């Protein structure tokens, strides 16, 4: 089943009669309509459909993942679903889709922007939206940033390494969280590890706290001075930070990392016995 069809089903089963009718009419108008019909309908969604949570069941979440691997609409709202649905059923080729998406983003309100960026993994001809995703990441609005960065498979699949690194670093910078970033471990790289450590040094110099999650980016490519940073956290950090450093060291291929970790047997076994993980750490942040 296609994402559009799934969205249609979910909306159909959740909307009141008049909202359902309006949506059906809007879709009809799209068939014979042009850009402005799409734009107006998309904006009208909040007035006609509202913003209640979509509240998908576990079964529906599974269907989503089958329809599009990595699609995670668990915290979507009705208006987001409806807006993306309208975009998808306006049935166009990739070029037209991008043109309309850009127009919509250029005149969007906050809620619309969040919807458009959450929909990224579903749009036709995926590589076309890389620049648009970068615009989303450039935003000052945290909610919009997170619409691209969190629970969204698009960045890990499509962004170049420099763009990816900037996104992850900005996530830390604006006080957002890393754990909802899809593909975080898969796309770890030495450049990002270095950037993260440099950022840690800045925070230490300023006497400001560091998110324990930062070290997750460092572990897989930790070497030399980065190992010393991890050692420092292991020794002097807060409890969550020490756990993070331990996890990071455990993920390092460098034999020196194992040596560092061995000096803390309790932490070392907590990691190897999976008593502490990035997931449990995330819950504590």
């Amino acid at each position, binding site marked *: 089943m296609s994402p559009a069809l799934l969205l249609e089903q979910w909306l159909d089963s959740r909307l009141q009669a008049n909202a359902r009718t309006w949506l059906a009419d809007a879709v009809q108008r799209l068939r014979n309509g042009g850009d402005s019909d799409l734009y*107006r309908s998309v*904006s009208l969604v*909040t007035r006609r459909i509202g913003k209640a949570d979509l509240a998908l069941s576990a079964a529906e979440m599974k269907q989503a993942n089958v329809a599009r691997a990595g699609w995670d609409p668990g*915290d979507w709202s009705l208006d987001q679903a409806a807006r993306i649905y309208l975009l998808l059923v306006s049935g166009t080729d990739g070029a037209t889709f991008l043109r309309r998406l850009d127009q919509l983003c250029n005149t*969007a*309100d906050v*809620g619309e922007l969040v919807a458009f960026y959450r929909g990224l993994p579903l749009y036709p001809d995926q590589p076309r939206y890389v620049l648009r995703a970068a615009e989303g990441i450039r935003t000052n609005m945290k*909610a919009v940033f997170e619409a691209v960065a969190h629970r969204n498979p698009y960045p890990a699949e499509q962004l170049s390494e420099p763009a990816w690194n900037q996104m992850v670093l900005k996530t830390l910078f604006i006080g957002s969280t890393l754990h909802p970033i899809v593909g975080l471990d898969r796309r770890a790289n030495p450049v990002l590890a270095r950037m993260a450590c440099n950022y840690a040094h800045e925070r230490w110099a300023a006497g400001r706290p560091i998110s324990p999650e930062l070290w997750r980016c460092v572990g897989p490519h930790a070497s030399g001075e980065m190992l010393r940073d991890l050692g420092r956290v292991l020794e002097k950090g807060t409890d969550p930070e020490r756990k993070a450093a331990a996890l990071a060291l455990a993920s390092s291929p460098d034999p020196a990392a194992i040596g560092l970790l061995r000096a803390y047997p309790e932490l070392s076994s907590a990691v190897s016995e999976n008593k502490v993980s990035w997931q449990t750490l995330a819950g504590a942040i």
Partner: protein
Amino acid sequence: MRFIDPHIHMSARTTDDYERMAAAGIVALIEPAFWLGQPRTQVGSYIDYMSSLVGWERFRAAQFGIHHYCTIGLNSKEANNEALAEQVLEVLPRYLVKEGVVAVGEIGYDDQTPVEDKYYRAQLALAKEFDMLVQVHTPHRDKKSGTLRSMEVAVEMGVKPEHVVIDHNNEETVQDVLDRGFWAAFTIYPNTKMGNERMVEVARKYGSNRIFIDSSADWGVSDPLAVPKTARLMLDRGIPTRDVEAICYGNALKAFGQSGQMKEEHWLNPAPIDQRMLFEGNSVLRGQTPRVGEPAIVERIDAVVFK
């Protein structure tokens, strides 16, 4: 006491203002689309401006716990650039239907030129077509006749008086506005035009029926705390609390609430999605229970003013 400022140009104001407004008890505001201090010459800057009213400025206000609504329209000054005006009118419908747009505004007359009249009427027609309220800016020069004309043309174009807010009133205009069934808003300026001492006497004379106040604070010398300060003065000077609450909160809500886009529950009990998306600094994120009721605010205006 809670306050609403139904006419304030926050794009021109700093975060210092937002902090003080939040501390003074302003829970919601309406930002009318207006000009930038010098004329726009390209429709593109108009488009980007309107986008910012429903985008960045709405988000920025939310960071201080203030609910931001707006009115959308072509203002009277820039209506005089006919080529630009045509292009703006074409784009307006896309914004009118967006969330949080409570009226077509601020529209009306500035110099009362024929071109201004043309686009005032065109936008009244739009308001009718989209079933929207209208926020009218009355001219600062030749105000009395301009106000009368604004009301007559609105009625002529088929818009109901109870759907229209006539703003920037003074002692000379208020009687006619009330008699004809329109909402009468007063802008409280620090030095020029209507001031808060005079407002107290207007309240004393006319009561609170269909009367409310705003600051119209913008890039000029103006006071974003005009509403709470005037409330304070009214209370000090013996205006009944019930009237003060209506003039400084309830009536603006009643008038613009007719749009269906502005509701008290938005700030008393924000929807979960709004909690997550907008009000991060002031409510709760990540699975904790949303805070119901207003944030701690400084009740006494003195503390805010002289902080």
